């Protein structure tokens, strides 16, 4: 349905992690959301789209991220589908 690789992710593949594996209190950049069209749409309407910066309040059980002042809770399996890289 769509390609899984983000063009910008080609040279940073080694640093790719899922949102669930990110460290607390760090900033990450969203690279892509793999699979699951409903999850993609749900995240997209909240502004979680490739390229945005998220601050990790907590990464797991469930994950909570900060995006432009809003706090978004993301369940474990959904957090594992969001591929990010450390920002900065």
């Amino acid at each position, binding site marked *: *349905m*769509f*390609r899984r*690789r983000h*063009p910008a992710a080609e040279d940073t593949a080694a640093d790719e992690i899922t949102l669930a594996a990110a460290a607390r*209190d760090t*900033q990450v950049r969203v690279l892509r959301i793999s699979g*699951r*069209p*409903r*999850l*993609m*749409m*749900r*995240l*997209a*309407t*909240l*502004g979680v*789209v*490739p*390229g*945005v*910066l998220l*601050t990790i*309040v*907590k990464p*797991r*059980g*469930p994950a*909570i991220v*900060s*995006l*432009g*002042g*809003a*706090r*978004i*809770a*993301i*369940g*474990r*399996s*959904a957090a594992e*589908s969001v591929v990010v890289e450390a920002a900065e």
Partner: protein
Amino acid sequence: MSGANDRRIAIAGCPNAGKTSLFNQLTGAKQKVGNWPGQTVEQFSGEFTVADERFEIVDLPGAYGLVAVSAEEAIAATYLAEERPEVVVTVADASNLAGSLHLVAQIAELGLRQVVALNMVDVAERRGIEIDEERLSAALGVEVVRTVARRGVGTADVKSAIARADGRQSPQLVIDYGPVVERHIGRLVEDILARPAVAAVGPARWTALQLLAGDAAMRTRIGALPAGDEVLAAAAADRDGIAAESGFAAEMVLAERRFEWITRLVGAMTGSQEPGLLWSDRMDRVLTHRFFGIPVFLGVMWIVLRVTADVTAPYLDWVDATVSGPMSRWAVGLLGLVGADGGWFESLIVDGVLAGVGAVLVFVPVLFALYLMLALLEDSGYMSRAAAVMDRAMRAVGIPGKAFLPMMVGFGCTVPAIYATRTLDSSRDRLLTGLLTPFMSCGARLPVYILLAAVFYADSKSMVVFAMYLLGIAVAVLIGFLLSKTALREDDPTPFVMVLPEFRLPNTRTVWALVRQRTGSFIKGAGTTILLASIAVWLLLALPVTGDGGFADTEIENSAFGAVSKGVAPVLDPLGFGEWEQSGSLLSGFVAKEVVVSTVAQLYAVDETAAEDAPGFAADLADVGTSFLEAGADTLRALPAVIGLDFIDLEDDTPTALQAAVRTSFEDSSGGRGQLAALGFMVFVLLYTPCMAAVAAFRQEFGTRWMWVSVIGQFAIAWAGAFIVFQGGRLVGLG
């Protein structure tokens, strides 16, 4: 529904943006609650007047965008696109402007006149977010009003902005989606304009955008039109084209582009500094912690449960005593004044109508307390955290995390539990949970267990009773698992993603509005059904079928009720309780589980109540008053015990004569295996239809078809359960 001169206004907004607060502020008490056509989603509507012009206002379900992901979003999107209200008031959360503007932008793209209520500006200011509303207004072509809806700040400004916007030229926002997408939009717009039926749907660019985003509602709508298939085929080709050229699904590209546009706009207005860690983040880390989250949640649920069950118990007794005592006597007295007392008519009024009214009213204190607790949890922001905590464990068996709350409530009473499913997100989740809550053993089933356990399992009473509760949970989990693998399967389960609302002190006005609407909805909706069923049961009892008794003056055994009980009895014979007294008590248990034990006593003609002298009117009135005050005092005394952990009180005060009658009856009906038959009877009582009030509530929430599925399914499961216990027990040589 409304006068011809009313102008239609809709309120839209993301969940938790303050939509409902603003709606309450605008309409005050002039509200109506109903359901969206064919949906189990609540529809609130109301009206208000500005400068002698009356406006009818509809509160749309919460939506993050107009490309629908949830049932609520589909309703909001369809209403806006098809009804095209005169003005849309979109509530945007000023502390999360970027997130809120997605919906605002889409409504502007649809070309509707819009007033944006920039809500919670106080929270935004505390976080140091400054918003240039004139710039926002110019960029989106909308009126922008600053509000703090919870405190009523800005409500008057919203009203005058609505009046100003009404009748103005409606501007259509055009966002530049980049060369690739714009080329496909242009092509699809031509295809749409070439077909008059499709072109009439709305702005062509809007139709094209929804089709490219793959919106299901728009696809269905276009597909039903002449030449709609051709447009759908063209749209599918364009979607493929965008995916091939950009490397992403078309809906992703559209959302991404729209967000880029929004981020630029917001960045230009507010500066894009990320606020630091807040105290609420620390609280969230604890409340949703992997290990602490669940114990905290269980503690909160325990309090909710105890308040609904224990604190309301004195009021429940008061309502019960008032209806069956003074109110019945007054009714008889009134009938005496017009000379209509003593006959079948008196019996109909007292045993049919008043008993039915009583059956409705006894639920009111419980529901009121439950709705109050739920509204407090919702409005404080805790409910979202609880859902986040429970989601993972419960999803493992196919049940959404938010289902935990209704199921806990079900231990108290099934009726409020079914209404509590309204807090769930999708109609599938609500239905699944509604089907499972009846298996949670409600308080009214307890007396049946206690009576039978006292007779047949005197040494291990508590264990048998506790086992019934555990069995109910096990059956619910099993049925939930099976349903989520079959009839209610989800290929792409709703992912758990939600914006956590700000923690805050619950607002009296919001909480009160929720409690009043929901309690009122029960009285009107389920109340009517319960009243009718109560009259129907009275009729069954009053109609003589055999014997020489007259109408409303016949032995139970000779009544239609007795005949039905005897007709049902053979079905229950393989379960070891096929005597008509036993089937009769189960039949009455369909009306309410509270009456199973009293029916048993009545059918075995064991009189447990002593006759008392009827007090006069004045004494009655004084008694109603003082007993209400006593109920209040009892409630206050019960409050400290709410957090205590004293276990179910298994004291039984059933007369020994009844115990002996029950023992003989079960030994007879089961061929000397009374213990097994009694266990089977308890399992049956646990698993079959809780009561007609629950059925009425279920019908109100999920429709008649699902009501029958639920009733018949529960009967089949109960029968199978009791069969396994009785026949299985016999096979392995128990009893």
